[in-house]
């Protein structure tokens, strides 16, 4: 990067990345990580870099991707939503609860037409999102705590609905979108792609999207600009819950069953996807593009580790270490950016 700075003989300049590169670190680093991981696994295993396997990866990250759309909004506002996996779970269970199950399924469920089941499930997740929003903006509970409580509440509703049983049937629309393909492309991948695209368009091209970035960038300044900060924060909590709910319904169809604790790993995965992609935990920086890169990093990592021959217990540790490295980069990139700006 030529910075246009005169370099006289007396002055010495340490060789450093230019300010532009430094400020872009947050976008570049995750991308490099992705390329390195892909190259590594392609080299380590012949079965990794195939078209089939690429399709696998896409399918594997779809549910996480749908949940991560809403979470991106939340994290851009410098808040957090720890209840996404639990809300996904309860929404998936609810949609099955309102569907007629086979006679051997021992759940006191309330069968309804497919559309009604879907609407009720959506209403449930939206309601839980509203409760999060209320706690955060009206009562003033930090989102970390509020959604921690919501995580437990949603898990509790799930438990009451299924009572330790497993339900299998979901409305036809849901099972089509969750478990079938069109032209060789799984519907769930298409839904995830469309939701990611939608999230991107909202964040980049709408007034609401701008407000999300501004509230995340400097909440006090947003308030002094006369923005309705509480409304914006409340909205992102609801968006997050609804995205989680949609992910949950399709996930249930995808897995073929609805049961307690089915989505537990998705909390970490969806937060990791957003943050690994480079969206700042301090708010205001990043976006859906980053989340997509983060999803691929995670997808390649999870999938690739299955293709190489290592101790499966070691894999868990490796995953953790790579996530840690990505988080370190996230925080470090923030600092570099601040330095570049001062």
């Amino acid at each position, binding site marked *: 990067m030529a910075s246009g700075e005169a370099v006289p003989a007396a002055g010495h300049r340490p060789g450093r990345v230019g300010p532009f590169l430094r400020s872009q670190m947050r976008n570049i680093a995750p991308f490099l990580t992705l390329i390195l991981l892909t190259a590594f696994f392609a080299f380590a295993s012949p079965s990794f870099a195939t078209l089939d396997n690429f399709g696998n990866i896409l399918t594997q990250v779809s549910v996480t991707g749908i949940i991560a759309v809403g979470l991106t909004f939340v994290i851009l506002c410098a808040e957090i939503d720890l209840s996404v996996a639990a809300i996904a779970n309860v929404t998936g269970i609810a949609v099955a609860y309102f569907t007629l199950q086979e006679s051997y399924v021992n759940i006191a469920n309330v069968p309804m037409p497919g559309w009604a089941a879907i609407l009720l499930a959506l209403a449930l997740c939206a309601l839980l999102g509203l409760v999060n929003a209320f706690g955060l903006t009206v009562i003033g509970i930090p989102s970390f705590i509020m959604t921690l409580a919501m995580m437990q509440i949603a898990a509790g509703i799930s438990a009451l609905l299924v009572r330790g049983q497993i339900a299998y049937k979901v409305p036809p629309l849901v099972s089509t979108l969750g478990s079938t393909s069109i032209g060789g492309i799984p519907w769930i991948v298409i839904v995830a792609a469309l939701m990611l695209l939608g999230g991107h368009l909202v964040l980049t091209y709408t007034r609401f999207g*701008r407000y999300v970035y501004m509230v995340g960038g400097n909440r006090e*300044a947003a308030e002094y600009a*006369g923005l309705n*900060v509480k409304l914006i924060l409340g909205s992102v909590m609801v968006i997050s819950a609804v995205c989680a709910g949609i992910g949950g319904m399709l996930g249930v169809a995808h897995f073929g069953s609805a049961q307690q604790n089915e989505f537990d790993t998705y909390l970490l995965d969806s937060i990791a996807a957003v943050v690994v992609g480079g969206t700042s935990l301090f708010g205001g920086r990043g976006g859906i593009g980053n989340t997509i890169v983060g999803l691929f990093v995670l997808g390649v990592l999870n999938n690739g580790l299955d293709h190489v021959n290592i101790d499966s217990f070691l894999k868990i540790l490796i995953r953790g270490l790579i996530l840690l490295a990505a988080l370190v980069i996230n925080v470090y990139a923030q600092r570099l950016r601040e330095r570049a700006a*001062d």
Partner: protein
Amino acid sequence: MPQDRSPVLELAGITKSFGGVEALRGVDFALYAGEIHGLVGENGAGKSTLMKIIAGLHPEFSGRFLVDGQETRFRSARDAHAAGIAMVHQELSVAPDLTVAENVFLGNQPTNRLGIVQWRRMAREAGEQLARFGIDVNPMSRLGDLPIGQQQLIEIARVLFSGARIIVLDEPTSALSPPEVERLFATLQRLRDEGTGIVFISHFIEDILRVSDTVTVFRNGRKVAESVAAATTKGALIEAMIGRGGEALEHSYTDDLMLPTSNGGSVVLKAEQLSLARSLREVSFETRSGEVLGIYGFMGCGQQELSRILFGKLTPDSGTLSVDGRPRRFASTADARRAGVALVPESRRAMLFHQEPVYKNISISILERISALLLKPAREREIAKRQVQQLQIRPPVVGLDLGMLSGGNQQKVALAKWLSYPPRLLVLCEPTRGMDVGAKNDVINIVRDLRQRGLAIIVLSTEPETVLSLSDRILVLRRGAVVREFSNEPVSKDRLLAAA
């Protein structure tokens, strides 16, 4: 003047650019022990940039840098600190979530042999230091809860008592009341007599002349003048700063000024019996369209709280507000904005998005007007360009991140965001803080123009000059109560100070 000795700090041929913008071009600067060196120059002239180089915050620059005659390069603020250099930044750089005591001892907290922080000792010593400086606060209170002026004082105290032998103060007095400024100057003079080298930046040229031994003038990234303070005048300095025959721009307001008779516009805002905890007591007033109401008082007199109430950020304990005759209860700042109220607060950090470009900072409050659902960035930029031209914001690039502007130019951006769709009532807190002489004059003209267009304007300031230069009518606030109103009568700086 201690010119016979060699300087403690010497910079030669300093050049620094940001991207393509040259902030400093071949600047020479020398500071002696036992000297107060005043630095003046227009907004964006490069004062802060040079000081940041001295404090190790801009490690990349070209030119020679000598401390005690030794060629040196600081890699970081820590290096500068180790060399005995401390700085008070133009932007407050305190830690709002820590206690007052922690802030005073930031970076060198007293610890016992086990490395455990000695809280009690820290609180006691912090209290003593602050008391010496005339600040009476509980050292264990959270710093962010204090008014901004006190935060500034505490930051200054930290630096002054850090034991540094070279001290840089970048516009330290912008939020201080006259008695506090006096105390600061007394302390500076004592430190100077003890052999400390001090650089003092300010847009208050009288202050610079009074307290400095040497004065240096910057213009457009170059040093254009340096002289012994006693041998120069305000007029000469202003002329060196901005080139025009500048004296006319700066009134001293020592003589009486006649406030105009009321123009009888319609009442825009009526505040009745506003009270807020310990800050405000039964404050009532009204403002009319086409009138500028000045509210003057020392720091902590309740101005800040009053402005927040008018903008819906604070809810009064009792009292009522009405806008255009309709009673209003603002539940949020968004409510207030919709009712036609706009506020420019005194703290830049609180009102601007440093990581966002200038045009987004300007358009944020008017997005509703220019876009229903989808953004129109081209239109935003166009509006921003117009404001940037009108207010002469430098550099005139609306796509630049706000953090890259000089302090005074940031202040102008904060004002700009309300000007494209003027509100009914504009509340300005310290509107000229940190602005150079020319820019202050621009603000005066803008405010007059807005008044002409029928806005009601409230100017709250702790600087008598600001209030006097802008207002048609002046209220004086003391300890949360209105103690005097000047209208249709002569007023001067002395009368104002006496009333407060």
